[in-house]
C-alpha cells in the first residue's frame, strides 16, 4: 500500500464552514433523521415482520377466533359492526403506540449514554433540538409506514368498510407521538438505567392497551376504571380510527376533543423533550 498525504485542504469550494452552518441551521433536523433511518434500515426486515406479523396474528386470534363467539351475541354492543371491524382501528393504534414506546425509550438512552450517538452530531453544526427533532421525524416516518402496512393487512381481512378508513393511519401515528413524545422527555431525563423502561411497558403501556376501549367499548367499564381510557392516547386514537373506519357515531365535538388531546400531549412532549435535550447536551 502506498503511503498517502494528509488530506488536502481547500477542495471544499462552495462548501465553506459558513455554508455548512447555514445549511445545518435550515436542514439539520433532516440530516439527523437521515442518520436514524440509516440505522433503522439495519432492522428493516424485523420491522416489516413486526408490522405484518402482529396484525395478522391478532386478526386471526381476535378477529376470526374470538369474533365468531362475540358476533353470535348482540351485534349492537359494538355499534352494529362486526367485532373484527370494531377492533381493527384499536389494533392499528395500539401497535403504533407500542412501537413509539420502544423507539422513544431505548434509542434515547443509547444516544445519551449507552452509545453516546447524540454527542457525535452535537459536535457538528447540528443543535440538540435538531437532533431531537430528527429522531422524532424518523420515528414518525416509521409509524406512518408501519401503520400503512398494518392497515393494508387489516383491509385484506375486510375490516375497513368505510372509504375514509385510511385516515386511521394518521390517527395511529398521532397517537404514537402523543404517547411517545412525553415518554421521550422522560427517557432523556434518565441518567441511570434501573429498568424504568420495562416498568413503563408493563405498568403503563399494557394497562392502557387493555383498558382503552380496545377490545370492548370503554363505557362497558365501571366509572372507576373508565378514566384510564380518558387519559389514554390509545383510546383517543382508537375512537378517531373508528370514526374514520366505519363511521362510528359520536358527537363532532368529541372527535375534536380527541384530536386536541392527542395534539396537545404531543406538543407538550416535544417542548419538554427539546428542553431536556438542550440542557443535557449543553452541560
Amino acid at each position, binding site marked *: 500500500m502506498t503511503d498517502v498525504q494528509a488530506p488536502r485542504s481547500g477542495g471544499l469550494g462552495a462548501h465553506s464552514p459558513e455554508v455548512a452552518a*447555514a445549511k445545518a441551521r435550515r436542514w439539520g433536523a433532516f440530516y439527523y433523521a437521515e442518520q436514524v433511518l440509516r440505522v433503522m434500515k439495519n432492522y428493516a426486515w424485523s420491522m416489516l415482520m413486526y408490522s405484518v406479523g402482529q396484525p395478522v396474528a391478532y386478526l386471526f386470534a381476535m378477529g376470526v377466533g374470538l369474533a365468531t363467539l362475540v358476533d353470535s351475541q348482540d351485534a349492537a354492543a359494538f355499534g352494529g359492526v362486526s367485532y373484527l371491524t370494531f377492533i381493527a382501528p384499536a389494533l392499528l393504534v395500539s401497535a403504533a403506540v407500542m412501537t413509539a414506546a420502544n423507539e422513544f425509550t431505548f434509542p434515547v438512552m443509547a444516544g445519551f449514554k449507552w452509545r453516546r450517538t447524540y454527542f457525535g452530531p*452535537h459536535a457538528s*453544526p447540528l443543535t440538540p433540538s435538531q437532533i431531537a427533532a430528527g429522531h422524532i421525524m424518523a420515528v414518525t416516518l416509521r409509524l406512518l409506514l408501519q401503520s400503512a402496512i398494518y392497515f393494508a393487512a387489516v383491509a385484506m381481512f375486510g375490516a375497513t368498510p368505510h372509504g375514509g378508513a385510511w385516515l386511521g393511519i394518521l390517527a395511529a401515528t398521532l397517537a404514537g407521538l402523543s404517547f411517545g413524545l412525553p415518554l421521550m422527555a422522560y427517557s432523556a431525563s434518565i441518567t441511570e438505567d434501573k429498568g424504568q423502561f420495562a416498568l413503563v411497558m408493563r405498568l403503563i403501556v399494557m394497562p392502557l392497551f387493555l383498558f382503552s376501549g380496545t377490545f370492548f367499548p370503554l363505557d362497558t367499564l365501571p366509572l372507576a376504571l373508565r378514566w384510564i381510557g380518558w387519559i389514554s392516547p390509545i383510546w383517543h386514537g382508537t375512537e378517531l380510527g373508528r370514526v374514520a373506519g366505519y363511521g362510528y357515531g359520536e358527537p363532532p365535538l368529541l372527535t375534536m376533543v380527541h384530536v386536541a388531546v392527542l395534539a396537545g400531549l404531543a406538543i407538550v412532549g416535544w417542548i419538554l423533550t427539546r428542553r431536556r435535550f438542550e440542557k443535557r447536551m449543553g452541560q
Partner: protein
Amino acid sequence: MMPAGTRSGRLPHAGTVIAAENLTKTYGDVAAVDGISFSVSAGESFGLLGPNGAGKSTTMKMIGGVTGRTSGKLSIMGLDPDSHGPEVRAHLGVVPQQDNLDEELRVRDNLLIYGRYFGLPMSYLGPKADELLEFAQLTDKAKSKVDALSGGMKRRLTIARSLINEPRILLLDEPTTGLDPQARHILWDRLFRLKEQGVTLILTTHYMDEAEQLCDRLIVVDKGRIMAEGSPARLIRDHSTREVVELRFGSERNTTIAAQLDGIGERLEVLPDRVLIYAHDGEGALEQVASRGLRPLTSLVRRSSLEDVFLRLTGRSLVD
C-alpha cells in the same frame, strides 16, 4: 451590526484562531475552569496538559461550542460559540475523549453520514470518505461494522470522521488514552502529517510524551487554573534541571534515606516509590550518592520531562 470578531473585547491579532480571556465554567459551587486566558495562532499545535479533573475537557467543550461558559470571553475564528454555535462548530473537527461512532453503521457510512451533518453533498463525500479511509489506514475495513474494529482503529476512524469537513482547527481530547504503544505511534504520525498541512491542533493529554511529541506550545493546567505556559523545552528549562536521577531504595526506606541525600543536586523530590534528584549533571550526582555509601536498589539518570515540570508546579504526579 459589528463584525463578530470585534465583540470579544480585545481584537485578536491577525492569525489568532482561538482567544480565551478569563474563561470560567462552574458547576454548582465547583469551578471546573477557573479564569484561564490563552490564545492560539493558525497552524499552531497547542496543548492542555494536566491530570484528570484539571478542567481540560470542559475547556475543550467550551471551545467546541457544545458547552456554554459561566463567564469570561471566548472567540473561535472571531465568533462567540455561545451565540454562533453552529458556525463555530462548522469550522472545527472534533475528536472526543470517548468514541461516539455509530456502531450500527459500517465504517465508510460513518464518514458519509457525519459529512451530511455539514450539509455536504454525496458527490463530495464519496471520494472524500475514500481518501480519509486511506489516510486512517482503514481502506480494507470500509465495509466492516464499527463493532468489529480494534480500539486503535476506532480512534483512527474518529479522527477520519473529524476531518470530513476539512476543518482548519482540530480539537483532540485525550486522543491516545487507552491505546497500546504501537497504536499511539501510528496515531501520532497521522496527527503530525495534519500539523504539517497547517491544521491547527488543540489537544488535551495527561501524557507528557504526547505533549512533547505534538505540541509547539502548551499550558499546564491544574484545578481549572493555568500553572505555566510555554514550549515543552522552555517549560523544562524554566521549571526543572537538565537531568534527573531516579533512585529506588525500597518503598519503606525512601523517606528516611532522603535526609542523607541533602545537598546533592539542586533539588530533591521524595515520592512514595522513588527519590528524584534534580541536577544539571546526573552522573555526577549519582557518584556523590555512591560516595556517601548509599546503595539504591535501582538508579537511573534521565533528561527532565514535562512530568517533572508538573511535579514541580503542583507537587503531584500527572497520572495518579
